């Protein structure tokens, strides 16, 4: 009998018991749908995070001063007093073969005032290189120049959130605002970057030359900076850049061989690796859940197929009597379970995709449905049908025609 004919027989048997077939499929549907949905949400989150992290900067490497020898209480990253703008300049000057941009960064919280409006935030003191390093673009007006940086001009650029809160519909460019009661001129507005992964509004930002921030807003007797941002020419040179930046800073900080670094480097690959390992763990857990649900679904199929074989034992006997070989019978029942499980798998894929999209839409989560993993889940459902359908089909094929015909 041709495969196609046997396939038709299997389809007909399934169609005859619609409710039962549906219930049998349900296990597979739920299993596959769950896998697809969770995968889509997980992949969406991961892709979003990766995009977010790469948008943090262009071949970004960060160097933080580290609190050393200050007793058991650490001030946390960026709280050390050891790094200066001079360090940043030195890196830019001496490591130009590795680094395409360096910006020192100082931070101080300020109250911003314009007319009767008030807004609290952190002003970031940076250098002009920050545009290159952090993928910021200026939407209106201009960024500050190197000259303004050297002269510690009281100019600033603001993000869209700051603009909205201070200026509403007014054109901010050229207006003067007060930061800690010092007047600064707004010269530009940064293009919106939106919220990042952690829900932080990246547009709630105000930037000024670090020189101006140090001089007018921090008024510290020290020249220290909170961190420096580096943009490498190529991420391939990351290890070398870390080594050379480290050597340069150790030399500048006069550290003896026995002393530990008084700074720490961070880069986005580290963060990505962390995310990767978290996602990896998620994947393992998911796979386990999927395997269990598909196992349960598979056992359901096996159970129904065993019932089906017993129920149709006379049919089996008759088919054998008129010439069905054991292989024909095996194929018939195996196909039946494979059709059940693949239909379950297909419906599961649809339910999973629709479900993921719905959840994503409702919660505002990014959803990423990958063709590869969807296809894999679907093929796996077929495999489940084959695996769990084999035993009942094999049993049917080994029956004696006369025992079947005589079965009461």
């Amino acid at each position, binding site marked *: 009998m041709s495969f196609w*004919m046997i396939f038709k027989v299997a389809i007909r048997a399934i169609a005859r018991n619609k409710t039962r077939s549906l219930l049998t499929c349900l296990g597979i549907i739920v299993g596959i749908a769950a896998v697809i949905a969770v995968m889509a949400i997980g992949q969406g989150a991961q892709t979003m995070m990766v995009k977010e992290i790469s948008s943090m900067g262009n071949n970004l490497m960060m160097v933080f001063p580290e609190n050393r020898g200050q007793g058991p209480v650490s001030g946390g990253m960026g709280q050390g007093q050891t790094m200066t703008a001079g360090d940043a300049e030195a890196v830019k000057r001496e490591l130009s073969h590795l680094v395409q941009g360096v910006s020192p960064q100082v931070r101080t919280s300020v109250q911003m005032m314009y007319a009767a409006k008030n807004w609290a935030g952190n002003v970031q003191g940076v250098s002009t290189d920050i545009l290159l390093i952090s993928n910021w673009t200026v939407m209106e007006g201009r960024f500050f120049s190197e000259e303004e940086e050297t002269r510690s001009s009281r100019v600033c650029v603001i993000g869209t959130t700051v603009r909205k809160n201070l200026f509403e519909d007014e054109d901010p460019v050229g207006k003067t605002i007060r930061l800690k009661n010092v007047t600064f001129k707004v010269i530009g507005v940064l293009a919106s970057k939106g919220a990042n992964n952690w829900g932080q509004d990246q547009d709630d930002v105000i930037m000024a030359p670090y020189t101006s921030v140090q001089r007018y807003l921090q008024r510290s007797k020290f020249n220290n900076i909170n961190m420096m941002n580096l943009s490498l020419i190529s991420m391939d040179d990351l290890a070398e850049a870390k080594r050379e930046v480290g050597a340069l800073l150790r030399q500048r900080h006069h550290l003896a061989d026995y002393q530990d670094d008084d700074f720490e480097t961070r880069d986005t690959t580290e963060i990505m690796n962390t995310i990767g390992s978290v996602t990896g763990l998620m994947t393992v857990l998911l796979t386990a859940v999927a395997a269990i649900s598909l196992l349960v679904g598979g056992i359901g199929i096996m159970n129904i197929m065993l019932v089906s074989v017993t129920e149709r034992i*006379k049919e089996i006997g008759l088919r054998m*009597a*008129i*010439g069905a070989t*054991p292989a024909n019978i095996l194929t018939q029942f195996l196909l039946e379970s494979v059709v059940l499980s693949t239909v379950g798998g297909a419906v599961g894929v649809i339910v999973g995709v629709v479900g993921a999209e719905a959840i994503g839409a409702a919660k505002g989560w990014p959803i990423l449905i990958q063709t590869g993993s969807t296809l894999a889940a679907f093929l796996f459902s077929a495999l489940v049908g084959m695996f769990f359908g084999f035993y009942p089909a094999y049993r049917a094929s080994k029956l004696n025609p*006369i025992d079947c015909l005589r079965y009461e």
Partner: protein
Amino acid sequence: MANLIEIRDMYKIYAIGDEPVHALDGVSLSVDEGEFVAIMGASGSGKSTMLNILGCLDVPTSGSYLLDGVEVASRSATELAHIRNAKLGFVFQNFNLLPRTSALENVELPDLYMGRLSMRARRRRALELLKRVGLGGRHSHTPAQLSGGQQQRVAIARALMNNPPVLFADEPTGNLDTKSSIEIMNLFTELSDEGITIVMVTHEDDIAAYAKRHIVMRDGKVMRDDHGEGGRKSVDEVARLVKEALA
């Protein structure tokens, strides 16, 4: 005429309970091409057992079986399936049609397993056979929509699908009324006249009277094998023959 069926020292022993049952107890017989044989005997005498073994649905405990000159006693399940498909037709007491499946599709079934004909040729042949058994207009009826006699005629058409040389029938009229029984037996007579070999189990004398040769069994043994040299027997003659054999 060639020897179509030949069995030698055939035993079928069931070992259920304390005492083994000899359903077939050393039977030897042969059937020539074109014969119309009725196997008779009391209930439990081994008629069905013999027919099932002859029909390759069951295997003997021991003994040899040559079908068309080929030993079949030691064949694999697959080989037996091919033999049944190509050479043997079956008609059962309870019809054994596939439920919820049209008469036409039931008749087509043996060729589906053989795969000899094209879809169109298969359909044409099945329709011809249905016409032949007098069901020309009922090819789309399912078994539930047919009377017992009509169902048995569908079963006969199905048995003829692959043009087998032999037809086996176990009490083909057992579930039918007199009128339908006569129709079925007339059909068998026609087929026999066309040269098909028929081996039929029955315990009714009037049904057996359609056959030319009569085999009477008791306790797994052949008690009488009447080749009917004296021409067709009447019902009374058959009854007498059975009575004598079992006396």
